[in-house]
């Protein structure tokens, strides 16, 4: 399998590096279009331009890449716990030193630049989880160990939620994927899927229909399996729990959720909402994307983009610019690049001999996937609005560096496969 040419180029997976470069490059072009002053008088090298700043961030991430790749691969495994602890401390420090930007205390401020520790905490958590799970002592099937792994994952998430930045906390759900890969019971998957399905279906159709459906399915299964004796007790339990859950979903949605959360769900579920206020983001974003047609309006020619109609267009909604200016062809290319990136990471992870590398690979594939799914889903109007960035694409130094570190640690780990025992 090992090719000599790969050795010659430092053993790095160049395919991943190329996709990374393509995404960052295309991302910058769209940030440029979304943030350029239409009057066209601004100096390109003026750092008050967002696109110039982003170019600087890209340059700095190059330094980061060189630094990461020059480190020993073993460094990350060895220092995983330390990195994790530092990361948790940096999140906790926000409660004291954090700067409030647009309602969220997620930033350390250094002059005109800010640093968002939650973007780095993902990598740290991935390293820590990989280290813990790859420990020869750890048994994923043991409930105690499962609980400890859960604590590792939940700690940063718990620190992030009250910032408040529930979107970034949601990303930690991604760690289910490495856990499952390493042998977590399938029950969790089934329960998780059913929970999500029941939640969405209940909101969409109302509790009565769903309960009727559950009872019906339970009866059919009961009649079919009436000869079998085992497991019947659990079997009776399941629909009862499901029905209780459906009621609680309704209760939680109506009483625990705030109106803005309800609104976001209602927008996606196509309920009757005012597209001028509540549904504005989604609506404008859909207009922008829909406007692109097959080939798009062309670079710098998107009218929605130029008019700044889509809020947060250079950050969370950057994909709408892709849709408007590059059309179906451009946006599917971006989708393709992301899918290729994630699949490549998964394939490489499976090839790792070292369990640590494999868990880490699965972790970042999962993290990238949650970002991808939630962000594109939100921009194309199939997911409720959750403010998380599109990796490598959205404007922002911390985000770009966080994802760069995440990816290049994996590239470094992967390059070391050949040296391992």
């Amino acid at each position, binding site marked *: 399998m090992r090719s000599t040419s790969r050795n010659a180029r430092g053993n790095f997976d160049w395919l991943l590096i190329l996709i990374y470069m393509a995404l960052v490059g295309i991302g910058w072009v769209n940030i440029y279009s979304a943030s350029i002053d239409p009057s066209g008088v601004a100096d390109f090298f003026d750092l008050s331009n967002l696109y110039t700043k982003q170019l600087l961030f890209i340059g700095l991430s190059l330094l980061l890449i060189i630094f990461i790749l020059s480190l020993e691969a073993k460094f990350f495994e060895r220092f995983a716990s330390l990195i994790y602890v530092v990361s948790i401390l940096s999140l906790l420090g926000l409660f004291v030193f954090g700067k409030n930007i647009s309602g969220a205390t997620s930033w350390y401020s250094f002059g005109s630049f800010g640093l968002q520790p939650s973007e780095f905490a993902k990598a740290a958590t991935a390293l820590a989880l990989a280290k813990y799970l790859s420990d020869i002592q750890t048994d994923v099937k043991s409930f105690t160990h499962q609980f400890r792994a859960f604590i590792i994952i939940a700690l940063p998430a718990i620190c992030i939620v009250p910032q408040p930045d529930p979107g970034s906390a949601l990303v930690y759900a991604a760690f289910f994927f490495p856990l499952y890969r390493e042998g977590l019971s399938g029950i969790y998957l089934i329960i998780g899927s059913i929970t999500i399905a029941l939640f969405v279906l209940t909101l969409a159709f109302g509790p009565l229909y769903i309960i009727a459906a559950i009872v019906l399915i339970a009866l059919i299964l009961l009649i079919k399996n009436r000869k079998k004796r085992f497991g019947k007790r659990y079997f009776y339990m399941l629909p009862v729990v499901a029905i209780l859950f459906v009621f609680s979903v309704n209760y939680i949605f109506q009483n625990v959720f705030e109106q803005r959360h309800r609104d976001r769900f209602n927008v996606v579920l196509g309920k009757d909402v005012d597209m001028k206020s509540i549904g504005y983001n989604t609506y404008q974003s859909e207009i922008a994307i829909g406007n692109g047609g097959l080939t798009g309006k062309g670079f710098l020619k998107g009218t929605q983009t130029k008019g700044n109609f889509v809020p947060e267009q250079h950050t969370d909604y950057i994909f709408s610019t892709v849709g408007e200016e590059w059309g179906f062809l451009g946006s599917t290319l971006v989708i393709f690049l992301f899918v290729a990136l994630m699949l490549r990471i998964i394939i490489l992870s499976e090839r790792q001999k070292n369990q640590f590398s494999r868990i880490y690979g699965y972790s970042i594939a999962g993290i990238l*996937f949650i970002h991808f799914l939630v962000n594109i889903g939100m921009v194309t109007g199939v997911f409720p609005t959750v403010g998380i960035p599109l990796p490598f694409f959205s404007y922002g130094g911390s985000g770009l560096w966080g994802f760069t570190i995440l990816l290049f640690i994996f590239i470094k780990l992967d390059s070391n496969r050949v040296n391992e025992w």
Partner: protein
Amino acid sequence: MRKILLFSIVLISGILFTGRLFYLQILDTSYAGLSANNAIKRIYDYPQRGHIYDRNGELLVSNQPSYDVMVIPREVKPFDTTEFCSLLKMTKEALVKRLNKARVYSPRLPSIVIPQLTKSEYAYLQEKMRKYEGFYIQKRSLRDYQVDYGANFLGYIAEVNRADIEDNPYYQSGDLKGRTGVERQYEEVLRGVKGVKYIQKDRFNRDIGAYKNGTLDTLPTPGKDLTLTIDAELQKYGEELMVNKRGGIVALEPSTGEILALVSAPNFDPSLLVGRERSRNFTELYYDSISKPLFDRGLQAQYPPGSPFKTLNALIALQEGVVDEEESFSCHMGYYYGSRGRKLGCHSHPSPLSMVPGIANSCNAYFANVYRRVIEKYDTPQEGMDTWHDHLASFGLGQYMGTDLPTGKPGHIPDSDYYNRAYQYPKYKWFSTATISNSIGQGEIILTPIQLANVTATIANRGWFYTPHIVKGIEGETDAIPEKYRTKNKTTIDPANFEPVVEGMFGAYNYGTAAGVQIPGIEICGKTGTAENYTKIDGKRQQLTDHSIFVAFAPKDNPKIAIAVFVENGYWGGRYGGKIASLMIEKHIKGEITRTDLEDWILSHSLEEEYAKPLSGKPFPINDGKKISGQIEEKLKS
């Protein structure tokens, strides 16, 4: 399973997103126009509407600038309504009502708040408009009428309504459009095409520069000037003569079919339908149900033609060969027919008469005989009736004239179907005598003045006509006049058969019924008409004073003008119609009036008293007091 879970979820979500994008970007086209509305503002530049000239190049209609206060409802920010209302001189309720209406039309498209400010109002407002976001002033051009006549054919322009906008995407709320007359008929010629500038806006609705660097912007195309066939001087004179009368005058140039004058009385000043007073004035004109000034009597009024119709019966009889020029018929103060000795009355004149003096003296008996022969020439009266009808149809009667004016009426020429239905054929039979009134232009026949003028022009041409039209030229176009108006329409009557009729009309003018209105030095061929007419008062049919009708063309050879005059309830043909027609002919041919006695008589006589009679609610005398309306029939019954 553990190895492929994430792999497959990633793959599936990639495919689903591609599908979602395919739906949004390719399948669902409803988003395509939305952004254009959202992010692009259009600024319109309205071109000058084309001017309208008469046939001699006299300017009839030009433009004046006007300024509309417009609003784009969704851009309106809270403002000082009291101050704004006092600025616009409107009440707060009116403003609120106006704004609500604008919002219902569209929150993002402009609507008019106050239309058509004058220049001085505009100058005052212009300074202060900036304070009120969402409001602005749109410059347009309004009509400026140089003349106070011709309102009936010039037409007017008015703000487009909902139906117009839905009908034609060119128009937007607040745009002006020709409503009647040539303004409507030649709307696209006169209007031009408005220019548009596309401005990219940001989400705060601020302009942030030209969209696509202005490559899509268009310049306005100015409207084209229109030259009409109308002779302004003749038109003006005609309207003056018709003051205090009701009716219509249509004057044509026989050799071209051009409409020289199209008078409808009572008239009104076209300037009434301009500016902010338009709506109030229009309502006033519209609801004047007694004199109906908006009703174009030259084009739309349908009258029984009376005696001028006899010329057509003579032509048909000659063409059908049922009579020749020489044959005479006697008249004993009328024509007696049928087994019960029914009578079609006539006035006193020498008897017997052949065709030429028959026309000149307008003998009813002569034409009753001739008409019967036409109908009875064939085996059945149905066949005869249809032959008669088809000859008349070749003159353009019983159908829309097809002029280039948007209004008109077909009139009516009965055919066999009509009588079959009326008499329930074949249950009951009918014969020529049942339709004998047709011989003298009464009965079931009705014509519009322009149809009768066209018949006169056809006689003047001895057998053909061009469809009457009002456009003479369009600025910058060589073939402005449609093919339809450059094609000769030939009648079914041989040219030779016209000569006796022309002679008869010449006789009427020289020694016959119209001898009183002679113009020295002009050979006029004319024909009087006195048409009985009825109205309904309280559901009862009441006879009114006869319509005074006159048709004429002149000169006899190479005619320059053919004219038809209808004066409602003017009594006999020579009384009003003949005088007016003679004066119009003299005006057109000589350019000056020598028969000032006729002119004085017409200008000093009013028919208003006559028109007031049926409204008085009392029995009234008609035809100068010779009989009382409504009592004749009662006497006959007893």
